[in-house]
C-alpha cells in the first residue's frame, strides 16, 4: 500500500511543480470555451443550447493534452524500469498513476467547468448538471487514454498516435456525457438513463484501461 501512496504523492507533486502539466489542460479548456462564443456570435439562446456539448468537447480535448506524458517521462529517465520490477502489482501501479493524472488534470477541468459555463450563458442548474457529468465522465477519459499512453511507450512512437488511438474509444463517453446533460436540461428523456450508462462506461474503462495498460507495458519491456 505504501508503495502506491508513494507513487500517488510523487506524481501529484511533480505535476504541481514548475514544469509540471497540472494546469495546462485547464488553460487549454479555458481557451477553447472562451473562443467558441467569438466564433459563433453573440446568440445567447444558441450558446445555452449547445453549452453542454462545448464544455464536454473542450474537456475531452484538454484531457487528451497531457496524456502522452503519463508514461513517456518515466520511460525516458529510466523510472519505468524500476516501477515495472518493483514490489507492487503493476496493475495497481498503473491505476495509481492514472488516478494521480486524473487528480492533476481531470479534476481541474471539473472545477473550471461551472466558471466556464458562465461564458456560455448556462443557468445554474445547467452548470451543476454538466459539472456532475464531467466529474463522472472524465475518469473514463483518463483510463481510456492510459491505454494509448502505454501503447505509445511500448511502440516507442508518441505524438500523433495517441489521439488517433484514444479518440474513437472516447466517443461513447462523449455521447452519453452530453446526452445526459441535455436530458436533464431539455428532456424529454429521463436524466438517469444516459447518466447510468455514463457511470457504467467509467467503471468499464477503469477496469479495461488498467489491465490493458499494464499488459501493454509488460509486453513493451521486451
Amino acid at each position, binding site marked *: *500500500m*505504501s*508503495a502506491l*501512496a*508513494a*507513487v500517488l*504523492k*510523487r506524481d501529484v*507533486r*511533480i505535476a504541481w*511543480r*514548475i*514544469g*509540471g502539466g497540472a494546469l495546462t489542460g485547464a488553460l487549454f479548456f479555458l481557451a477553447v470555451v472562451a473562443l467558441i462564443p467569438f466564433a459563433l456570435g453573440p446568440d445567447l439562446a444558441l450558446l445555452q443550447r449547445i453549452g453542454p456539448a462545448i464544455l464536454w468537447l473542450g474537456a475531452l480535448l484538454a484531457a487528451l493534452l497531457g496524456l502522452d506524458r503519463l508514461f513517456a517521462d518515466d520511460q*525516458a*529517465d*529510466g*523510472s519505468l*524500469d*524500476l*516501477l*515495472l*520490477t*518493483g*514490489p*507492487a502489482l503493476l496493475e495497481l501501479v498503473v491505476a495509481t498513476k492514472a488516478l494521480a493524472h486524473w487528480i492533476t488534470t481531470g479534476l481541474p477541468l471539473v472545477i473550471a467547468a461551472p466558471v466556464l459555463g458562465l461564458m456560455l450563458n448556462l443557468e445554474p442548474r445547467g452548470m451543476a448538471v454538466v459539472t456532475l457529468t464531467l466529474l463522472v465522465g472524465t475518469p473514463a477519459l483518463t483510463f481510456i487514454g492510459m491505454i494509448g499512453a502505454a501503447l505509445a511507450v511500448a511502440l516507442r512512437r508518441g505524438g500523433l498516435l495517441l489521439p488517433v488511438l484514444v479518440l474513437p474509444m472516447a466517443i461513447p463517453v462523449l455521447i452519453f456525457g452530453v446526452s445526459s446533460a441535455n436530458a436533464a436540461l431539455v428532456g424529454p428523456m429521463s436524466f438517469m438513463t444516459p447518466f447510468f450508462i455514463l457511470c457504467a462506461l467509467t467503471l468499464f474503462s477503469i477496469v479495461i484501461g488498467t489491465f490493458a495498460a499494464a499488459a501493454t507495458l509488460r509486453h513493451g*519491456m*521486451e
Partner: protein
Amino acid sequence: MTARAGSLRLRGTGLACVRGGRRVFAGLDFALTSGEALVLTGPNGAGKTTLLRAIAGLLRFEAGNLDWQGGDEDLLLAEQVHYLGHQDALKPSLTVAENLAFWAAYLNSGQSSAAAANTASALAAVELADIADLPAAYLSAGQRRRLSLARLLAVSRPVWLLDEPTTALDARAQQMLANVLQGHLAGGGLIVAATHATLPLRHVAELRLGQAA
C-alpha cells in the same frame, strides 16, 4: 543487511538473449555466491546491458536457466535485485531528498518503515546531504550518478546489477563507489557490473562477452 544467510547463489547456464531478431549472446555460463563480484567486459554491443536487464527481469532469456538460491522465498529475483542502469531515474522537479525518499518508499514497501532514517544515512554516504533540498534538475552528471547510487544503499537488496557505475564519477567519487561496493560484498551481497573501467575490488571474476558472435 543483518540476518542475511551466508550462502546466496546466482548461477546462469547456457543463457541466450535475442534482441530485435539478432542473437546478442548464447551459451553463457556464470556462477557467483555471496561476497563475490562478476565484471562483464566486452566491446560495445556485446550484450552487457542486455544480460543485466535480463537478470533484472526486464528482458526474457531466449534459452538457458537462471538459478537463484538462498534469497527470500516469497520474493521474485526481480524484487531482490537493484538495477542501476544508464539512466538515473530521477525527476528534475523533485529535490534530491524527495527523489531518494520516493524510491526508498516504493522499493521498500514490503518491509518496515525504517526508510526515512535509511535515506538520510544513504545521502550522507554519497556526500549529497548538503544539497538534499536542491531540485535534481541542478545536479551535475556525477552528482546524479551518486544520487542513484544512494538508492542502493537506502533499500537493502542482496543482488546489485550495475551498468557502467563509474560513468561521470570523479576520482574521489570512484573511491567512494569502491568503498560502497566493497561494503556490499562484505555484507554478503552479490554484484554483477558491466564496465569498461577496472573496478577497484578484490575477488572479482570476469566474464568476457562478444566472442561468440
